[in-house]
């Protein structure tokens, strides 16, 4: 796969532990890549570094082999960018904003703009200041997509969109991917990432903590397990099983959390007579929350984190 986006030791140090540190990332061409993290984790800082809005303290980033800092104009020819918050265009009408930005870029097909506005049901005749947040977000999508870029960099693109338009956006992302575009989108909405991304990176406190395919990410997932026994509950054997945590016993019922393979738990359960067993897999959202929960809560072992 040809690399669409690559960073090496990319760092923006704002001091006092704030910023982005030693980011090594590679996104393949044609990939839909999700960039996850809670607020303040460094998602927007990463995107601004890629877009050459801010300059790295050290390290480098490139888009399709072009250095983002050395040749920013060339990079931006390849990129469609949607910021987290669209700027103020005051009294300009939507159609004027589109023309203005298209003028800056050059070579934008008007038919493509019309098609995007139709799909998103965006009235370009209204003044920018009259737009609701959702409509501003739609305009941002039009501006990012109108020139059919090879790489889309989208900072929380569906924030403010209603569910119907979110679905439309997901379709548009799939279509962009189908025509060969690469999509790099930041989000903290995991359901969205689950729907459209092939790989995700998770960033926390400015550091990359995980990068994996969506199915690989399931390694950090866990299962809530409830087991009902006919006789004695083999609590000690279950507690001793690898990957089993938070074991508690109430009467004949044992509950626990299982990470990774079920085999050690199943082996331990052979010590008793199981009459009922329910395993519940939490959503990625819950997994994500658990991932960021304080270690003292004991939801995430170092072993799981390392995986």
């Amino acid at each position, binding site marked *: 796969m040809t690399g669409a986006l690559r960073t090496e030791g990319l760092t923006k140090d704002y001091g006092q532990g704030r910023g982005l540190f030693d980011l090594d990332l590679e996104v393949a061409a044609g990939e839909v890549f999700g960039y996850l993290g809670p607020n303040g984790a460094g998602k927007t800082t990463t995107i*601004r570094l890629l*877009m*050459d*809005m*801010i*300059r790295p303290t050290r390290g480098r980033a490139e888009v399709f082999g072009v250095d983002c800092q050395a040749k*920013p*104009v*060339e990079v*931006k*020819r390849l*990129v469609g*960018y949607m*910021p987290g*918050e*669209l*700027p*103020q*265009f*005051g*009294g*300009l*009408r*939507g*159609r*004027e904003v*589109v*023309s*203005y*930005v*298209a*003028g*800056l*870029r*050059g070579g934008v097909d*008007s038919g493509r*703009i*019309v098609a995007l*506005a*139709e799909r998103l*049901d*965006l*009235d*370009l*005749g209204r003044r920018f*200041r009259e737009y609701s947040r959702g409509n501003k977000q739609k305009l941002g999508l039009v*501006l990012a997509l109108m020139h059919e870029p090879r790489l889309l960099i989208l900072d929380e693109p569906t924030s403010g969109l209603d569910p119907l338009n979110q679905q439309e956006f997901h379709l548009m992302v799939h279509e962009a991917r189908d025509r060969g575009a690469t999509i790099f989108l930041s989000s903290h909405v995991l359901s969205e990432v689950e729907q459209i991304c092939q790989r995700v990176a998770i960033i926390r406190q400015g550091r990359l903590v995980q990068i994996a395919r969506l199915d690989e990410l399931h390694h950090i997932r866990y299962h809530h397990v409830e087991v009902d026994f006919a006789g004695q509950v083999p609590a000690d054997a279950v507690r001793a099983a690898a990957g089993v945590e938070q074991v508690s016993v109430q009467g004949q019922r044992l509950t626990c959390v299982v990470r990774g393979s079920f085999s050690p738990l199943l082996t331990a359960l052979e010590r008793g007579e199981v009459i009922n067993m329910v395993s519940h897999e939490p959503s990625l959202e819950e997994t994500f929350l658990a991932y960021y929960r304080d270690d003292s809560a004991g939801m995430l072992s170092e072993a799981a984190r390392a995986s």
Partner: protein
Amino acid sequence: MLRIALRAHRTGFLVGAALSFVTMFVETEGFAAAAGQTPAERAAFGAQMQALAPQVAYLIPLPIHPETLAGYVQWRGFGFVYIITCFWALMAATGAIRNEEERGLIEQWLASTVGRLRLMAARSAAFTLAAAGVVVVTALGAFAGAAAADGSLDLGAVLEVSLALLGVTVASFGAGLLAAQLVTTRRGASALGGVVLLALFFLDSLSRVNSGLEGWSRISPFHLYNRTTAVAPGGVFDLPATIALFAAAAIMTVLSAYAFAVRDIGASLVRRRRVTAAAVRTPSANPLLRLPVFSALYEQRWVLLSWAIGTMLLAAFILSLARSTADLIRSNETLRGYLQAGFGTDPNLVLLALFWFGFAAFILAAYAISQVARWAADDAEGRLEMTIAQPVSRARVVLERGFTLAAASSVIAGLGSVVVAAGAPAQDIHPETGRLLVATALLVPLALAFGGLGAAIIARWPRLAVPVLSLVAVAGYLIQQVGPLFRWPSWALDLSVFTLYGTPLTTGVFWTGFWALAAVIVVGFGIGLAAMHYRDVAS
């Protein structure tokens, strides 16, 4: 809430207080230099000022005993300083409502436990306190100036005029609050409030030269303010007029509070009925939007048009006064000598050079400062980020700003000079076309010099750019206007940035000044370019 509101007025308070203090101090301290030391010199000076004053009555009221320190301070000090405080009041009022609505702050306050009326009361109370502070500092400027001039002022009289000054300032704030209820943007509110206050200002000033307007002038807060002349010997403190000022302020604030309470946040009190029309999906076909510089000019076309029309009206107004003022100068040996020594032989032309081109230079500087404010806002509001997210170099952004400023300044200066060229013959003024063109063209580098300074400052301190440039412009203008009158040394006059412009209409191009302006432009935009290249852009 009051503490937060006071904090919001902090920058305005500091700038307003500094400008007012400097204005009062300079005017008061300069009295001795202007009027001389002996009673005879001062009597002669007073007679000259009495003769000159009607010619500038469109700006400041007529003097009472200008041969005395107190009379001079009342005339030149308190007769001018209210323009500064009222301008600040207007900007503070429109900012307190519309700017904070645009930034979503009002929504935040109202989403908490703060009610609309309480919010309005807090903002008005905070401004009144800040304005009282500025008025006190202004009075201190007068006393400091008087002490420096070995004179003294009556404390009670200064307090009386200060009370009137506070009254006209809060009345202007009330007018600004009211204007802010009628339009949806800060820029629109400032424009509407500015037009109303300017109309009231001219209603007062023109009533001094046209008795037919005297009755109408009573509705002008500036007329009510100028009725108090307590500092001047024989002057009066018009208590009813002062009470009327505070009453007007209270009424306008209450009306604004009512409008604020009943209207939607983000909307005007008077809403236009939206015409239902089919949704538009096509981009604008306007070719200007796709061209560098022209797109920026198109976007600010109404603002540019307002500046151009304002400049043309002012040019016509000043031109209409030129001949009568020149006649006065011809009849006054001292003034004639002073002007001829400094600027040339033809009093008509000298007046045009000093009054119009002196004022035009200040207008162009003010326009350049407004553009610097726009650049700073582009950065803060994410517009710059959006621009350089396109395949556009950072250098192009800075250069386009410079070229846009040059183009817009050329339009404003050019149209002003067209009015001057067209109207001058009727006033028996015959400027050489070539020199008129040169004098007009040289206004552009002056505007660009302010732009260059702004480009350099906003790269590091975007919030400071406008206050710093405003200080440079106002101080420079004051130095140029009052310096020669007070016989300041040439090095002091050279401190004015406007000195670099020279008087090209009468004495030709001041090449040293021109090259100095060119250097400021190159260095300023050079710093701006370098800073833009290396700095982070993040809203």
